[in-house]
């Protein structure tokens, strides 16, 4: 199974990296860029018994380690692999 996890800043939290990349893109002539947010994308290969179990465990992993829930939020989905 594969967990695809997106970790992004919560609304209102400053994203200095996004801000700087936004400016850089504008400077490069991409004037259509209105805003940039940069987060993390994690792929975790799992050996779980079921999707339900994977779901529970991945949520826990996100809360405990993968996301800094004080400033970040996360979402994920579990996809079966062969």
């Amino acid at each position, binding site marked *: 199974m594969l967990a695809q996890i997106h970790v992004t*800043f919560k609304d*209102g*939290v*400053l*994203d*200095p990296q996004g*801000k*700087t990349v936004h*400016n850089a893109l504008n400077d490069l002539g991409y004037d259509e860029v209105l805003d940039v947010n940069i987060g993390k994308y994690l792929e975790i290969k799992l050996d779980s018994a079921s999707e339900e179990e994977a779901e529970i465990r991945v949520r826990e992993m996100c809360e405990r380690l993968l996301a*800094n829930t*004080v*400033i970040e939020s996360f979402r994920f989905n579990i996809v079966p692999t062969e």
Partner: protein
Amino acid sequence: MDKPKKNRPGPEITPEIVREHGLTVEEFRRILDLIGRTPNMTELGIFSVMWSEHCSYKSSRPYLRKLPVESPRVLQGPGENAGVIDIGDGLAVAFKIESHNHPSFIEPHQGAATGVGGIMRDVFTMGARPIALMNSLRFGELEEPRTRFLLNGVVDGISSYGNCTGVPTVGGEIYFDACYNGNNLVNAFCLGLVKSDRIFLAGAGGVGNQILYVGSKTGRDGIHGASLLASSVFDENTEDKRPTVQVGDPFTEKLLIEACLELFECDWVVGVQDMGAAGLTSSSFEMAHRAETGVFMDLSKVPLREEGMIPYEILLSESQERMLFVIKPGHEKEALVILDKWGLDAAIIGEVVEEPNDRIQFLGQEVVNLPIIPVVDGALDLKRPTKRPEYLDEVVHISLTEFPDFSRGDAALKKLLACPNIASKEWVYEQYDHMVRLNTLVLPGSDAAVLRIKDTDKAIAISVDCNSRYCYLDPYEGAAIAVAEACRNVVCSGAEPIGLTNCLNFGNPEKPEIMWQFQQAVEGMGDACRFFDIPVVSGNVSLYNETKGEAIYPTPTVAVVGLIEDQTKVMTQGFKKSGDQIALIGFTMEELGGTEYLKTMFDRSAGKPPVLDRKHEKQVQDFCRELIQRGLISSAHDCSEGGLAVAVAESCFSPGCQTLGATLTLESTLRNDTLLFGETQSRFVISFPEERINEIEDLAMAFPVDFSLIGKVGGSHFTIMVNGKEIVKQEIDVLKQIWKTSLGNYAGQTT
């Protein structure tokens, strides 16, 4: 009677709302008296932050007034963003230490990072270029996974922020104790260099001057961070009070430093203030207050990061990397050109007015109209009751007979070297860029950090210190020792102490026992500073360091800055040469109270801490500095945690020096444990070439100070003989390995 509500939108001010703003009933009544009407919501928010413990120092101010703040070198004492001390040659150093304890507990990385950013802004607002950072860190027991999470996060935060701004982090201290399990401490220190005739103050200056906003855009970060967090106790409900955490942007800070230093070159810059705790509110009020003027601001002009922000939020936001400049009218364009060059947001948001009020408009409506003086000065000094805590009766009485002495000290020595309070802090400081700017003459790992001042012969030595276990056992003596030890550390490098800044970390001041600790500690610090003739030029108070009723040990951290006139006469703690003589300056008493030895071997934080004999302390310090200035010795190290044995071991394997063994040959009637690991104050371990013995002994006699030859550098072992009997013999490489890797091994565990 009909009360007109013109221009005063927002909810009605209920007792509930007042309470939520951390204001007492009496305080609210005072507000009504002072302004003669009910404040609106925005104004209430302003009072709430300005009268918070953090901004008003209402519990601590009466005590702080007793600290000595003057010396011929002091150019600026407490009251501005940082203290400034003259170092000659037309130069001065600006420095301060400040806490970021609560934010770092909630989000260690960002909390520590923004702490570093804040203290740097305090220093460069004085017109100084920041040239050194230090920090003092306290965590709970390392066995707790949460501690390791906090430790990693805090060190990472300091590293990412300091390194990116290009200011070296040259030293610090770090301790672990269960009393910090629920409340870690992060105290950040910064020192900057400024021409003594180009110091900037935070005054608004004359009427008509323009108020220029510089730096990052304002978002909803940390609203009520300072007031609510730093003025209340953590418990299960802390979650609810979490403000939006401030995120640091060290890149913007770096640009801000460069841009501000460029602006300071211009003679039309009148004043400057960073927006720290309580943001735009406190910076505008305080600038007006210092200049005895008023200000007018239009919040519609403030660069905003988020949509729909209301005046309340704009005024109380604690978004980072923002400054407020006051400039003479007619120079707006020039200012904006400089700021644009550095890619910073900027806007003129108001001006200085005569009437001593802060009047604030938003979208054409007046939203605040408050008199400056009562808002800034109006918080009453609280005379909080004090009471000597009962725990003291229990913990200070110990008898040495409770603790069996040893005939071999190997095991204890190894255990102490591995104990995280004594083990090498390399794991920490290797994550900090401590060399950038090419001034660091003594890298981390010696008693004090030393930085040269380019284009002069001078150097600056800095040390931060506090043994909070001593302070727990005797806050007066503990605080005095903190001052003495910090001085001793800078003296070891050859410097003369010239100024001090402090960060007073305590529990809940509403408890008389805590207030007693505070009072005792400030008195001890003040008395020691007076005796050693060291002015306190800046400082910071952090109260309410408690979780679930458990307070931290009183932790009055001090940072002492010392001056070395001749850069070429800088001393370090490591032994330099096989065959050199080792000597002890000072004497050892039969005592173990408050030692790391008792804690590590017997898990006791108990006993009377060592007593500081100030006169004696001064003599040994002067003697040690004299030896260094005359070029007589090769190393100098003070005895602190772990006592004599640990001090000598550390000199054997100091970073930057080759590893050398040593043999100590001691004659003594003391118990072995006190002789090796006791923490009697006012002691230095020095080493020097044999042929200097006579000269040094003569000088010791003339001073006079206690001085005894105790051994020799060399060999592959660390050996200690007492009265002809071997009580320690270990391969020096083995000891070094234990000492060097212990902290990293702890910190690296994931579970």
